[in-house]
C-alpha cells in the first residue's frame, strides 16, 4: 500500500487492530446503529486504513458518529474490532492542536436539568483533548 505513512502506522499502533484480518463481509456495517449518520461505515474504516487513506477518514464527520456500542467488535467473525479503528482515527485528529470537536464553552447550551454528568464527561473525553 503506497499510501502507508506515519498517520496510518499511528492509527494501527494506537488501535492495536490488525486490519488485514478483515474478510470484507460487512457484518460490522450491517450491525452499526449509527449507519445512517455516517459517511464512511465501519468496514470502510477498516479497508481505508488498510489502504492508508487516513486523510479522508480524518476529514469526515463520521469519526464523531460512532456510538462506542461495541456491536461491531463483538459480532465481527474475524475479530477485527472496527470501533477501535474509528476511535484511533478520531484520536489522531483531536490530539492535534485546536482540533477539539467539543469545547467546554459549548456545554452550557447543551445542558438540561436531567442530564447526567457522565454524558458531559464522556463527551469531553471522546471529542476533546
Amino acid at each position, binding site marked *: 500500500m503506497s499510501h502507508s505513512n506515519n498517520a496510518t502506522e499511528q492509527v494501527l499502533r494506537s488501535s492495536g487492530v490488525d486490519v488485514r484480518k478483515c474478510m470484507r463481509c460487512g457484518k460490522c456495517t450491517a450491525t452499526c446503529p449509527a449507519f445512517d449518520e455516517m459517511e464512511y461505515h465501519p468496514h470502510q474504516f477498516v479497508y481505508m486504513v488498510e489502504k492508508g487513506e487516513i486523510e479522508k477518514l480524518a476529514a469526515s464527520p463520521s469519526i464523531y458518529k460512532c456510538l462506542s456500542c461495541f456491536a461491531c467488535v463483538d459480532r465481527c*467473525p*474475524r475479530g477485527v474490532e472496527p470501533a477501535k479503528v474509528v476511535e484511533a482515527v478520531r484520536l489522531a485528529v483531536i490530539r492535534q492542536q485546536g482540533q477539539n470537536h467539543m469545547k467546554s464553552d459549548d456545554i452550557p447550551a447543551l445542558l438540561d436539568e436531567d442530564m447526567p454528568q457522565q454524558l458531559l464527561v464522556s463527551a469531553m473525553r471522546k471529542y476533546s483533548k
Partner: protein
Amino acid sequence: MQRIGVFICHCGTNIAGTVDVKAVAEALGHEAGVVFSTEYQYMCSESGQQLMRKAIREHKLTGVVVCSCSPRMHEATFRKAASLEGINPYMVEIANIREHVSWIHKDMKEATEKAIILGRAAIAKVHLNQPLQAGESPVTKRALVIGGGIAGIQTALDIAEAGFEVDIVEKSPTIGGKMAQLDKTFPTLDCAACILTPKMVDAGQNEKIKIFAYSEVEAVKGYVGNFNVSIRRKARYVDETKCTGCGLCTEKCPQKKVPNEFNMGMNNRHAIYIPFAQAVPKVATIDADYCMMLKTGKCGICSKVCGAGAIDYKQQDEVIERQYGAIVAATGFNPIDAKAYNEYGYATCPDVVTSLELERLMNAAGPTNGTLLRPSDNEHPHTVVFVQCVGSRCTETDERGKPYCSKICCMYTAKHAMLIREKYPDTDVYVFYIDVRTPGKNFDEFYRRAVEQYGVHYIKGMVGKVTQNGKQLRVQASDLLAGEQLHIDADLVVLATAIEPDKTARSIATMLTASMDTNDFFTEAHPKLRPVESPTAGIFLSGVCQGPKDIPETVSQASACAAKVIGVLAKDKLTCNPCVAQSDEMLCNGCSSCEKVCPYGAISYSDKEFRGPNRTTLIRRVASVNPAVCQGCGACTVACPSGAMDLKGFSNKQIMAEVDAICQ
C-alpha cells in the same frame, strides 16, 4: 568388512549446481571400505540404476551409499535396484545432499564439505547395517466401517462388492445419516431419499454386510490386518430378529411427547419409534428416557400389541468382540449450535431456523408434510432471508465459530432459494453472502440459475441483527455494493450454520490412534497423495470426518477409501516393516521398563532357560518383541537400561557411528 559403493547424484544441476560432486566422489572414495565411488547425472533414472547395478556386480559390493535427494523420495527406488542384484535392500543408505545441502546452502565449498560429511555418516552406518528380512502378518478379511451415513454406506457397499465382509457400526437406530434428512440434493435436485434409500436397502440386504445399528465402538486393539474391536450394542428393548417393523407399537404408544430428532425437534414422536419409514434396519427402538414401562413399570402397551413378541423390557447392553483387517472412520458431521448466534435471533425467535431445519420443513416426510410453513404460526412465509457463513470462516480465536469454510452452504442455500421460488413464486428470497463459492461440476451454473432464472436476490453483505417485529422478523443487513444498510421485514430467516465433526469423533480417533487437526477433523496420511488414509496403518477415512464435503465428493471419497481397504484385505499377508525392535535375551533383565512405553503392546515376557556357570541352568524372565505388532518407534530402546533392546536399522551402534562421523 563391507565392500561399499558410493554413488553421487547430480540431480541435473539441483545438486551439482552447489555441490562439487566430483570432489565428493573423490573424497568418499578414500573412506575405509569404499571400493567404488562415482557420480552420475540422475541416479534415479533407469540408466542411473543400471549403473549402480553394474557396479554392484562388477565390484562385488555388499553395501551401497547413494548421495542424492531425501530418502523420503527415492530410498525405495535404490533399495529395489540393489535387491535386483542380490543385495539385501536394507544394505542401502541415502545421504540427503539435496534437501539438506544443495538447496539450502549457497557456498560451494561449504556445501561440498557438508555433503562429504553426510556421505561419511552414511558410509559409517552401512558398515554396521545388517541384512533385514521383512516379516509377514496375516490379514483378517473383514472391514469395520464406523458411521452409517452415505460415506459409510458407500464404502461398505464397495468393499462388499469386492467380496469382503464389512460391518457397519452406527450409533443411531438406523443407517442413513444426515443425507436421510435432506429433501433435495444439488446440483441435480433429485430427491435425497430416492437416491439414498436404495443404497440403504442394498446395504441391509447384502450378505457381506452386517449392520450394527444403535451400537458404538468401545475399544480398539491390534494393528493393521489384525484389529480386535469391542462393540457395544445398546439395548433397544426390542428383539431385532423378531421385530417386523410393522409400526403398530409406535402408533399405540401413549407417550407421544418426545422431540423428534429426525425432524430436528420440530415435531414429536412416540417413546417407541422407528426414526423414519425407510429406516434400515426397520426395527423399533424404545427410548428409555421417555418409556413409562421402563421408568415406572406401568404401561406395557407396546408389548401387548406386538404380534411378533419382539418387545423385551429386560434387554441389556451387549458388548461383542469382532476382528477386522482394516477400519474406516466415517463419523460425519453436525451443524454447530446456532443458539450462540442470537444476533440472528435463533435462540429467541421461532421463525429463525437453520438450513437443516429448513430441509425438514420442505420435506414431504417432515413435520409440515412438505408445505413450507413457518414454525411460529404455520403460515406461508412470503419473504425469506438466508444468511450465509454463520460460524464459518471465523478467526482462529473466535469462541463461537470455526476457522474453515464449511464448503456446502453456498450450494445448498442456492438450492433452497431455488426450490422456494419454484414452489412459491410469490415469495421474495434474499441471500446475504460474503462470497459465493461454487467450485464443482455444474455448481456455478446452478447458482446462476437461482439468480437468473428464479430471481433470487443475492446481496453481497452480511446480516447484523434479526429482531422479532410483531409477527415478522426485522432483518438489518448491509448491502456492500450499494453502500446501504437494509431493513427487511421477513417471515422466515434461514441460517447456513457451519458444520463440525461429530462430537464422538475425537474419542474414536483416540481409540484408533489416528491423529486429528485442531478442528477435530481426522488428519490424512498425506493431504494430496494419501487423502483417504490416516497416518496410522490400517485406518482409513471416508466422508466429512476428514473435512467438509458435499455428497458427490463424499461418495467419491468413500469409494476411494473402499479401494484402499480392499488393497489391504486382498492381501493374504502383510509385509511388515523390518526395522523393528529386538531384545537381546542375553542382556535382558526382564524389568518391564520397555513394556511400559510401548504404544502397541508389542512386547511380552517369558521365562527362559539359560546356561549358567558350571553347567547350571538359570531361568530368567526376558522380553521378546512381536515383529508384526512393533511399528519401530524405538521408545523401548531408550527405556531399556541394559541396552538389551535395540532397533533394527536404527541400532544404537549405527546411530552412534553416524554421530561419530558427523562430529569427526
